[in-house]
């Protein structure tokens, strides 16, 4: 709106505004945060679209993600190579989906990806066990873990194959009243 900045061209900023839920100021602020993570690697000038990726270790040390038990999975789900190395595009995408303006359906898709630890497009029993252990820091007994996982499959599995496909997951999460308020990261 008149502020001269040389990080992005105006077309780039407009494109980012079209593709995410962020405003211009927020995108510039995100670039600042990205830059702070690794000032030596991240260039200040993005007009020529440099291909710079930051390793997962740097991203999961951000204060917004540090306490999250699913931080590695979050970063991996948004990375292109699946290993957790984020370019600036992926970085912006991640925070855009996790922001409070993203619609429920979009968040459900990414939540499914995050909770699918073995990336086989199903949430199977081992995924559930991993989720539960991360949530409770392994304080529950073996039988309790098994019981909870079985209950979850019983509740949510619609097609009876013993694991949750995306349709099952979406059906379950779309009715959850707390989903939108908890699946939200403010940046």
């Amino acid at each position: 709106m008149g502020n001269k900045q040389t990080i992005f061209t105006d077309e780039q900023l407009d494109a980012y505004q079209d593709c995410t839920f962020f405003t211009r100021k927020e995108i510039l602020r995100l670039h600042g945060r990205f830059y702070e993570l690794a000032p030596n690697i991240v260039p200040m000038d993005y007009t020529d679209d440099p291909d710079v990726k930051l390793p997962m270790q740097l991203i999961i040390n951000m204060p917004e993600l540090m306490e999250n038990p699913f931080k590695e999975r979050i970063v991996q789900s948004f990375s292109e190579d699946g290993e957790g190395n984020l370019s600036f595009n992926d970085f912006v995408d991640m925070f855009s989906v996790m922001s409070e303006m993203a619609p429920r359906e979009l968040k459900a898709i990414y939540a499914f990806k995050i909770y699918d630890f073995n990336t086989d497009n199903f949430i199977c029993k081992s995924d559930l066990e991993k989720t539960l252990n991360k949530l409770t820091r392994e304080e529950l007994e073996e039988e309790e873990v098994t019981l909870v996982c079985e209950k979850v499959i019983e509740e949510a599995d619609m097609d009876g194959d013993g694991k949750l496909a995306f349709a099952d997951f979406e059906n379950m999460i779309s009715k959850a009243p707390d989903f939108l308020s908890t699946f939200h990261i403010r940046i």
Partner: protein
Amino acid sequence: MKPWLAESDDENQAPANEEENGEEGENSPTGRKGRKGRKGAGAANRKARENAKKDKKKKDADESDEEDAITEEELDKLKEAVEEKKKLIATIRNKPWKMKQKLEVLKDAQAFVEKFEGALGKGKGKKFYAYKVMMLKKWMKFQRDFENFKTACIPWEMKIKEIESHFGSSVASYFIFLRWMYGINMILFGLTFGLVMVPEALMGKPYGSIPRKTVPRAEQPSAMNFATLYDFSGFAQYSVLFYGYYNSQRTIGWLQFRLPLSYLLVGIGTIAYSFMVVIRTMAKNANDDGGGDDNSFNFSWKMYTSWDFLIGNPETADNKFASITTSFKESILEEQENRKEENIHLVRFLRVLANFIVLCTLAGSGYLIYFVVRRSQQFALEGLENYGWWERNEVNTVMSLLGMFCPTMFDVVSGLENYHPRIALRWQLGRIFALFLGNLYTFLIALMDEINLKRQEEKIVQHNMTMWYANLFNGSQSENSTFVVDPADVPRGPCWETMVGQEFVRLTVNDIMTTYVTILTGDFLQAVFVRFFNYCWCWDLEYGWPSYCEFDISGNVLGLIFNQGMIWMGSFYAPCLPLINVFRLHTSMYLQCWAVMCCNVPHARVFKASRSNNFYMAMLLFILFLAMLPVVYTIVSIPPSFDCGPFSGKQRMFEVIQETLHHDFPAWFAKVFGYASNPGLILPFILLMVMSIYYLNATSKGYQASILELKKKLQSQAEENKKRSKKAAEKAAETQDDPTKPNNSPGSQPNRSDGTGAGPKGKNLEVPPRIAVTRPPAPKGPPVPS
């Protein structure tokens, strides 16, 4: 081939391309959509561009045939394609693709739209079409800039983020609610300040020119004292802050600003605007809600929606982990054993006793307020100068104290009841709500008594005033002096509207003071005590009792809602109320943010009052409705004071509308309005609205019934699937020797080939039959035709 036609063909080809591309052939929500979207749109675009080039060459070749080259039908198809592309651009941020992909698709779509939008303009109305397109682009740019501006204006974002990371989303929701209220109050303030206070201050008669705008001679010595000002009498009373100052001149100033009309419309407009905003927020929340109370996904929701992604503080995270573990353990316990109803009679007796105590408290507080208000009326009759600070502020102080102590008592009493915490919270909220409501309405009834008193006084004063003017006239006649009287000396009629306004303002100020003092003495002192006396105390204060307190979300939200109810009720009589409230909310935000970070600890367990955010919104709506009733009643039924305010001299306040219609609008308009406000027209209109409400209610019930049916169907389908797969699993378990035989007959029937005839039960002695069964769930094998 025309490019826009090419696209639809491409869409059909895309799935075929997709098969060879898919890494996993199974349902992948992002994979399939992403790939298809990319392939479909990108491929179509590339083809479109190639065809466009071909087309352009063709067009350049035969320009004379331009009109023929694009028929109406193709124009329509092109329009459709362009519209589709535009829609894609608008919704691209909702697509679950990788950012790089989104950027590419966006670029392609924008190029397509730009290229062909020009082509669309051929034929009729080309210039108009181009103009329309340009205006649309400008409008979109303006909208985007406006959105950016609005987002930049949102205050306290970082403060709320800090609270969220320390306390989780439920405590932060109070502050987000506070911020939203602040926004509403800013708008109300803008309305009252800009359309009522400023015009009168700038264009109306100045202070001291007419009797109603001057402090009476008797009060003048004490008019500037701090005590008087704090009490909102003296100079504060005779200023734009209160109703009584406003003059009833029909138009003021060179702008011919109709002040009385503006006053009335702003008063009604603030309430109408508040209604609109609250209902719109409720509708939005209802959309996000997703279906309300449903116990069928208990464990799933616990697993997937209990971690709060906003947490950024290690201590809070520890708390959260502990609370999640506890919650799971509780649910498991409930699953495993049925809780026995221990001694139901004792429990019932205790609950009845608790409710009885609560009812007594409510009745007691109602009577106390009534008694105090009566007493204050007596003080007023005997003249307030004889009494000290307590007697003057008795009513407000008593109400504030009741609001402070009764909820704590309810909390203690609810210990008797032994309810599940969520249900106990609901009871608590209900009781506090009843307490505040009762107090408010007792206060209003007492006010009505005072209003009636003042109105009777009016008649006497009116009589006295005519006598006084007659004396003055005679006196000036005999002395032959000019008819000049200092406005301060003219006897005044009583002004019940200003009195009501003053009462509300005093109540609000008291409420503010009480809240701040409670925070400072309650939470802060407790925290200081626990922190510093822990060193020299016998037991561990921090872990045992009293420990640091938790932030009382529901109490604070209720306080905020009731405070807003006061504002809505009183701002018609005291235009300064929104200003005071804006100031209060602003300082409250900073004070409470500091207090929460400094003195409170995160909740061990959080129970929301209800599953939806609409619970507090519904209360707000209810309070708004209740606040509207007294205001509307006074506008419609009570004659305004004859000596003060913008409606003085009229029989009813709303007569100013008729006056405006008569003077300012052409004659036919007044006639039309007269016909429209005929009861013969209004009654059928009301009837129509009632019928439409009934109809909408009936259809919504029908929809809910059909949703329930569909849910049941889904459930039974799921059960069938489970039964089927269980049977298949049993069958496969019995033919356990070769569970992974990949060769299956393409005919998907359970063929017992090879004529072994051995039933599935028992071991097969011969070559195991090649039976095509649906695979058991566990191993991921190659796709099986089932």
